[in-house]
């Protein structure tokens, strides 16, 4: 059991962006659409990892991003029934909690749909939204870096009796081999990009087989035009956070992941990020801070702890620490809009899938992170050692070592998880962050 927080609790220490409130409505509308899919006679595709949703949306297929559903359940503190169902079937607790939660939804789904003679037969509780997820008509696996993604999709297929068509897109890791290797360059990058693009073309044929219709490429071009614009606005707004005090923090960008990652790619997402960009610009103009008494600027390395998003935003704000950037928010999600050509989008989409924040080996990854730390002038890095997400924890010690030796900044780590809050230890975070902030103070004093 986590110990109660000993910090003073002024309400609303974090001055969150007002414009991101719209994300809540957009997210709710999107999930309502998902839950209605079967009633409306729509095909449903389950997928994880890469943002292949524009391919599906263009073909009028309802898309369900596994991590997004698990994150949504965790953020609403409604992950319990799904995780319990997964555990009951034999999935162990050390398994990726995104996958475990989503597979639990599949177990619940089967349980509620199968006849009373099934071991799975049961009736969902009214409030159990894990059971509301419509079952898939197809599964597409396109997961960068983490082997868990492909296995998770395969097990989903097996949970549904291997009756659901499944398509695999293999997205290789960029190992940085060869002297010309680097971020978005070199022979390895070019060859891997072509390999992924070829598979995406095949994936489109698979989609055509499922819908029985020619693929609507014009619709995809239109959607990718919106994605490109939304991405540019998002990056522009993030860039403005170099200002001191920072007008927005990682927690604002975390709230804004859904609009860039899996919400419908209509002009709504362009409007959303236009509003965000405008508010950030206005804050920069007036000097309004996301953390009113910004004293420290931090980088957050690790995936988000969705059970604790608001909690962490408040906690860091109370420490007068603005978490200005992070690997998860600032190195992913249509991160390179310049690579997207809306008129011929497939290659650029594949390349953006390859730019998942973990899909480059440490020499490239570390350079990118050090660059962000310098750009945003951070005093330290907080590592979220995500217990069941090894994709994120893999390079953490190496990043920490480089941050110290190359930039001379402080680092600290705390343990938590993406969707299983039992791994989160609040007191550990408090003590470690306090120690790091003290060290930063000492360093500043000694500089005078």
């Amino acid at each position, binding site marked *: 059991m986590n110990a109660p927080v000993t910090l003073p609790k002024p309400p609303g220490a974090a001055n969150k962006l007002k414009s991101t409130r719209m994300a809540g409505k957009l997210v709710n509308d999107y999930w309502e659409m998902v839950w209605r899919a079967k009633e409306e006679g729509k095909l449903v595709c389950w997928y994880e990892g890469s943002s292949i949703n524009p391919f599906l949306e263009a073909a009028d297929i309802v898309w369900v991003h596994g991590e997004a559903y698990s994150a949504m359940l965790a953020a609403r503190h409604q992950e319990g029934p799904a995780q319990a169902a997964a555990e009951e079937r*034999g999935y162990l607790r050390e398994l990726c909690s995104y996958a475990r939660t989503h597979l639990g939804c599949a177990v619940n789904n089967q349980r509620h749909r199968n006849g009373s003679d099934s071991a799975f037969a049961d009736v969902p509780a009214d409030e159990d939204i894990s059971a509301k997820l419509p079952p898939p008509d197809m599964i597409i696996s396109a997961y960068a870096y983490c082997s868990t993604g492909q296995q998770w999709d395969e097990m989903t297929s097996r949970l549904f009796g291997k009756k659901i068509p499944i398509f695999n897109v293999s997205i290789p890791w960029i190992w940085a081999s060869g002297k010309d290797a680097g971020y978005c360059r070199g022979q390895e990058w070019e060859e891997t990009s072509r390999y992924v693009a070829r598979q995406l073309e095949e994936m489109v044929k698979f989609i055509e087989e499922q819908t029985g219709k020619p693929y609507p490429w014009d619709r995809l071009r239109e959607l990718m035009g919106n994605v490109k614009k939304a991405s540019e606005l998002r990056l522009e707004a993030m860039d403005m956070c170099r200002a001191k005090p920072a007008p927005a923090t990682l927690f604002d960008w975390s709230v804004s992941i859904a609009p860039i990652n899996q919400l419908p790619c209509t002009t709504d997402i362009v409007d959303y990020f236009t509003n965000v960009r405008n508010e950030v610009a206005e804050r920069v103009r007036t000097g309004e801070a996301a953390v009113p008494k910004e004293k420290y600027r931090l980088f957050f390395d690790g995936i988000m702890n969705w059970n604790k998003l608001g909690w962490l935003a408040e906690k860091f704000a109370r420490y007068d620490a603005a978490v200005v950037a992070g690997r998860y928010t600032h190195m992913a999600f249509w991160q390179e809009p310049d690579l997207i050509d809306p008129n011929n989008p497939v290659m650029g989409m594949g390349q953006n899938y390859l730019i998942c924040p973990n899909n480059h080996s440490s020499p490239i990854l570390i350079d990118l992170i050090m660059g962000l730390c310098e750009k945003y002038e951070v005093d330290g890095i907080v590592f979220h050692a995500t217990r069941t997400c090894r994709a994120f924890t893999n390079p953490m010690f190496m990043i920490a070592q480089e941050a110290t030796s190359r930039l001379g900044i402080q680092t600290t780590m705390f343990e938590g998880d993406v969707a299983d809050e039992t791994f989160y230890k609040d007191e550990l975070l408090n003590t470690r962050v306090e120690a790091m902030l003290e060290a930063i103070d000492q360093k500043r004093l000694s500089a005078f």
Partner: protein
Amino acid sequence: MTPRSEIFEVLAKVCADPMGYARAWKTRTGRRVIGSFPMNFPSEMAHAAGALPLIIQEAEDPITAGHGLLFPFYCGFTRSAVDQAAKGDLAVLDAIMFGDHCVQLLGAADAVRVALPDTRVIFFQLISSMCDPWTLGRSKESFEKLRFELEDFIGEPVRDDAMRASIALFNRGRQAMRELYRMRVEGRVALTAREMQYVVKSSMVMDRAEHLELVEALVASASENLPQPEKRAVRLHLSGHFCQAPKPELLDMIEGCGAIVVGDDLYHGYRYISTDVGEEGNPMDSLARWYLDRNTGVPCPTRVQNDVDWDAFLLDAMRKESAEGMIVLMAKFCEPHMYYYPEVKEAFEKAGMPHLLIETEHESMALEHMRTRVESFLELIKRRRGVARANTPEGEVA
């Protein structure tokens, strides 16, 4: 002929200190040692390049220096590999090659590259989706890339005829080890699970010609001094444990409880030796074919292949082995195994086949606690025998 006890003494020594063997071999031959990560890199390639191919093994040492590179919630193999690199224990390796995709293995490889800046670490990711129309072609392309990098490292081409010779030698080694497996199932050889592990694990390390000679001697001497198996002993299949070998004391404990291990699909067991590589034609075509065939032969949960079922394979293997139960050995934090385990569990429950899950860890094993569980499991199987006998006409008469 070398007596059996002396053969096992040699094999056990190699298993206990693979790097010691590699150092001695290197001193003796003056040739390169090329390490690889489990489980899919074809060692034949490094052998054809004139090197000693060595599959990096989990060490017995407690993790110390490796704590600074990898978190404790990783499997024992990856933590140990990184720990060995950080301590300088992998210094004998001239290069490391791998092509696997497990997320923990990728993390370990990245950390090993940082810990060993002077060691060439060659990687090209093998496709892990095994039944796509392009899987075979991509596999060949991947092996060609690995070969190209290997040639770049050694500074000369690896010739096709050398590849074919290495493939033939490795095939003979696998065939000899499979013969031991066959003989064990048929009761023509008495080999403990520990001894079988010595046979297979040492083949991942030793000079293959030297190893082959010892295994062929074991096959030839097998009928000597064959003790009668204990009649009430429960015939077990051991499953799981992919990249790392189960600790021999765990195997001893299982058999000490009154079981005999008659089959397995452990990586340090039948999984490693299950499939031969074609000896004719283009060797890169043959390696690509082998990569696909072995997953059909002994399905692996680290791959995805919708048209083969590991659980069905296990039940079938156990039928052929006349195994009465299965112990699943799961290395703690092994994600592929955690994903697939519920499928196995469900299939075994449906088939009425008893199984027991044991999670193993690098540092500590509550062996006494495990012993109680194994004893209860074996007792349960023995009781089922009684029930089965009572339900047969013969049993009813009795």
